[in-house]
């Protein structure tokens, strides 16, 4: 199977008064159709920057410095602004954090959905686009009557599902969901995630789920990528990640999770994530790492594929590659 999404050496920097901050430092990954990838990391690790870069929505002082984002054979970074407008939603859709607050309060849900359709194809008839919108609403388990409603008539979970419906209107090949449930409680969260699961299988899209809730990742995704200071530290299947994480940071992250067995044991990660303007030399995790070696302080480890198919960037595993 050909990967539907390929990101090659993507780089993003923000130019601030205090200097240049590299928010995304050469990230590469591939994703197959219908695959679900979880992207986790602490705040400031570059998760959202990566989503925005893929959508080409980085605003100044930020800039995409290099790299490619290839969706179904099209290199998004090479498109003109006009073409990129069309590609958004039809090739790659983005459900931002707190998407439910992005609905226009004075427009009916239906009008907002049809807006999105007409922006891409003016030749579609009104009846046809109404039908498309209704079907999208049904596929996220909302009633057709929602089409005529205003956002304030819906609960948070319903609004979030409307946003998912808008996201899948034009059957994109890749859906990026940035913490789609962070403002919702557990029951609604489950409902929203089950909806995403269902519709992505229907339209055969790949999903990137961004978040820091490892529990949600364990329940939802196929593969997990761990980010730290704008770099991928480890990418492996969800099973490998939870049973045998390899990178010391991924390991610490997994072990800091509460579960039912170790009641009352709190294990955080010592130290703080470094500021992007003052990154440590060598491996950026070395000041917090318990396996730190001399080489880690001077040389940045390569992000490389191991024998069992996972990707790790750590000097501990250089020999296994």
């Amino acid at each position, binding site marked *: 199977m050909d990967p539907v999404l390929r990101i090659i050496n993507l780089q993003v920097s923000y130019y601030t008064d205090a200097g240049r901050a590299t928010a995304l430092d050469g990230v590469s990954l591939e994703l197959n159709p219908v695959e679900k990838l979880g992207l986790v990391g602490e705040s400031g690790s570059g998760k959202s920057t990566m989503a925005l870069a893929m959508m080409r929505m980085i605003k100044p002082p930020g800039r995409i410095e290099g790299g490619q984002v290839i969706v179904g054979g099209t290199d998004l970074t090479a498109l003109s602004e006009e073409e990129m407008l069309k590609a958004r939603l039809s090739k790659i859709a983005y459900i931002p954090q707190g998407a439910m607050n992005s609905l226009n309060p004075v427009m009916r849900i239906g009008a907002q959905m049809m807006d999105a359709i007409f922006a891409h194809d003016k030749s579609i008839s009104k009846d046809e686009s109404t039908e498309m919108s209704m079907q999208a609403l049904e596929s996220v388990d909302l009633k057709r009557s929602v089409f005529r409603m205003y956002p304030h008539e819906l609960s948070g979970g319903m609004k979030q599902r409307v946003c998912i419906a808008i996201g899948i209107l034009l059957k994109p090949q890749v859906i990026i969901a940035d913490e789609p449930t962070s403002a919702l409680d557990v*029951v609604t969260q489950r409902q929203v995630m089950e909806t995403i699961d269902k519709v992505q299988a229907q339209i055969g899209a790949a999903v990137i789920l961004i978040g820091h809730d490892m529990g949600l990742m364990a329940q939802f995704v196929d593969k997990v990528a761990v980010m730290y200071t704008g770099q991928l530290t480890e990418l492996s299947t969800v099973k490998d990640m939870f049973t045998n994480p390899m990178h010391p940071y991924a390991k610490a992250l997994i072990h800091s999770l509460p579960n039912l067995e170790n009641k*009352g044991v*709190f294990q955080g990660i010592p130290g703080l994530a470094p500021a992007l303007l003052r990154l440590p030399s060598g491996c950026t995790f070395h000041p917090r790492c318990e396996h730190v070696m001399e080489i880690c302080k001077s040389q940045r480890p390569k992000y490389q594929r191991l024998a069992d198919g996972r990707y790790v960037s750590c000097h501990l595993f250089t020999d296994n590659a």
Partner: protein
Amino acid sequence: MSKLLEFLNVTKVYTSGSFFSKPTSTTALSNLSLTLNENEPTILTVAGESGSGKTTLAMLLLGFINPTSGQIIYKGQDISTLKGEDRITFRREVQAVFQDPFGVFNPFYPVDHLLSVPIKRFNLAKSKTEARDKMVEALTAVGLHPQDILGRFPHQLSGGQRQRINVARALLLQPKLLVADEPVSMVDASLRANILETLRTLQTNYGVSIIYITHDLTTAYHIAKSIIVLYRGSVMEAGDVDDVIKHPQHPYTQLLIDSIPWPDLSRRWGETEIKARESESSDIITGCRFYSRCPFAMEECTQTPPLYRLSEHQAAGCYLFKQNPTIEPGQLSELLPV
């Protein structure tokens, strides 16, 4: 044994609607009774989804709003009638840590401000050096390095650090009771552990009772001794946190627990089906609050169920357990281990 805090049949009803429209009322908390004892510091979790009345409970407890009916007694006095010296003591002894560690700081002042103002207000220190010593002590107690914190501005600190400064501020005042309203929900998962650990040290080392308000049952399980599960203002289930979370009995608690995404691959979520929530504004006055979403709804559920005692430390408000003995709402505290 003296009582620190008592809720006596506390009900809070919010009414909305103008002069012209028919007023609608929402019961945010219905007939809750609760007792915390002074010499048994404990951590009690109040859990529930949004709109369950958790935050109303915190606001009532802090005296920000008054109950519609019932009384809240702090050390023998109704908190709505506290005056002068007593009120200041109450303000000092009952402290809060709120959800948003970003909103409580004034961006124009260094973070010291948050610590020095209460010292001044409550006359905790005679001199500047003493005030500084107190600040250093409190920051050290929550696991921060004072030299990294004092003199810095809020934007220079991470969410986890700021939240711990909030805990330090509460600690500075040597409270008897700490109300923590979702203290870790806006903090990164890797820092949550540190803050929870700090809260627990407060309870064990400083004898502070903590009311931990959350929708996150995973953290509740790890930090608390006992739990009260609320749904739209009514107690659904209460008891020992181990019993309630490992063996939930009430259909609502079962749904909640089943929906927790455990970071455990062998434990899949989604065994029970979710029934969509009815309109949020409608308020059914009679009957079980969970009726419209309950998979086991029966005819008798249109009457409000009492709490049925399931074991020494567990009770559920559901007719599925009607063969068990009932307990009065006022006896709720007896169920909760300390």
